[in-house]
């Protein structure tokens, strides 16, 4: 199996609907009209149905039943609707079982969704504006694993040998054995799905391997969220702790003094509600 053949399997994924990309693009305009977002979202029946299902779930605790996307946008805001749309679209691929990474059904979804929610939390804490971009990048950063999974499974002994006996970073081991790693593959998926160059870059560099991407706040936030989710053991597979952590990211965001503890505690206070939200996508 060569790199070209692996990349060609991207077509087997369920792509992110064009409507989702358009809604995200609209959300970047501070003057966007709620009606326009609601009208666009309503054009996609799956997006409409799922948005209403989640909006009416216990997580949001709304006092009355919401029957239209417009009402949902008014009550929860455009950012929340964008995030729900991408969660639904991404969950289709991410909730699969991936035994190459020792991930049971739903594990990668839980890790990805928790990373996205945590990245949102960190972005708000450090005053980073482009919340939807950060959320979506964190949500989609491991999409490459969905495609690479079967190849990792076939080469697991070689990869394990490099990681556990020779001290390789998991990403480096994937690259050495398979010719490309899940982050690079994820960026190729994002490119095929017409995401922005910024999104493609964040996904490609989210492990900050060799310091690549360390100069960008967006990539550092996604890296930190991903690492903290692994430290908390949320949806971690056999590769969980086998990636480098860039300690300097904590200094960059003034988290140096007990910062990781603060991030984990803040997330932990909402953990039950977040888990319920994430799990609700496993049932759809």
């Amino acid at each position, binding site marked *: 199996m060569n790199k070209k053949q692996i990349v060609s399997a991207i077509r087997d994924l369920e792509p992110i609907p064009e409507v989702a990309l358009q809604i995200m693009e609209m959300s970047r305009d501070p003057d966007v009209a709620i009606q326009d977002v609601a009208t666009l979202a309503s054009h996609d029946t799956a997006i409409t149905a799922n948005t209403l299902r989640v909006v009416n779930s216990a997580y949001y605790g709304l006092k009355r039943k919401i029957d239209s996307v417009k009402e949902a946008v008014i009550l929860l805001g455009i950012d929340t609707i964008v995030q729900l749309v991408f969660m639904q679209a991404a969950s289709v691929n991410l909730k699969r079982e991936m035994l190459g990474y020792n991930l049971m059904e739903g594990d990668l979804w839980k890790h990805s969704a928790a990373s996205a929610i945590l990245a949102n939390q960190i972005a708000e804490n450090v005053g980073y504006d482009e919340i939807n971009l950060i959320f979506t990048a964190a949500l989609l950063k491991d999409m490459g694993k969905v495609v690479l999974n079967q190849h990792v499974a076939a080469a697991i002994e070689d990869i*394990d040998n490099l990681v*556990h006996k020779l001290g390789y970073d998991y990403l480096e081991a994937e690259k050495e054995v398979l010719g490309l790693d899940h982050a690079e593959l994820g960026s190729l998926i994002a490119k095929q799905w017409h995401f922005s160059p910024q999104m493609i870059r964040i996904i490609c560099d989210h492990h900050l391997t060799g310091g690549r991407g360390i100069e960008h706040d967006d990539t550092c936030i996604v890296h930190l969220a991903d690492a903290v989710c*692994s*430290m908390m053991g949320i949806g971690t597979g056999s590769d969980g702790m086998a990636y480098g952590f860039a300690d300097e990211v904590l200094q960059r965001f003034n988290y140096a003094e007990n910062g990781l*503890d603060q991030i984990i505690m803040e997330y932990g206070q909402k953990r039950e509600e977040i888990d319920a939200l994430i799990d609700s996508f496993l049932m759809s």
Partner: protein
Amino acid sequence: MFADTGVPAFLEAAGAFGLSPGQAKVVVAGGGQMPGQSGESDIGGRNSLALEGLMTDRGWHPHHRSVGGKLNRTLKLEIASGKNRIQIPGQTMEEI
């Protein structure tokens, strides 16, 4: 909740059910860290240290430890037999 608050709460709850150190088999697993975590950011290492101190102070002595390293672990407890199993990626399951 981290080891410094979670372990005392857990031992207190266990004590309320009448459990004393001599009646229990204690297995400690976890405390790993990603390459690059050190000092303040080494939560796994700090948790391991805190746990050992807190347990020793209260007379609890682990029968088995599988801690540290750049590893994540899955700990399984079989209620019926009391057997513990620890799974580390790339290694065979350890039965205790």
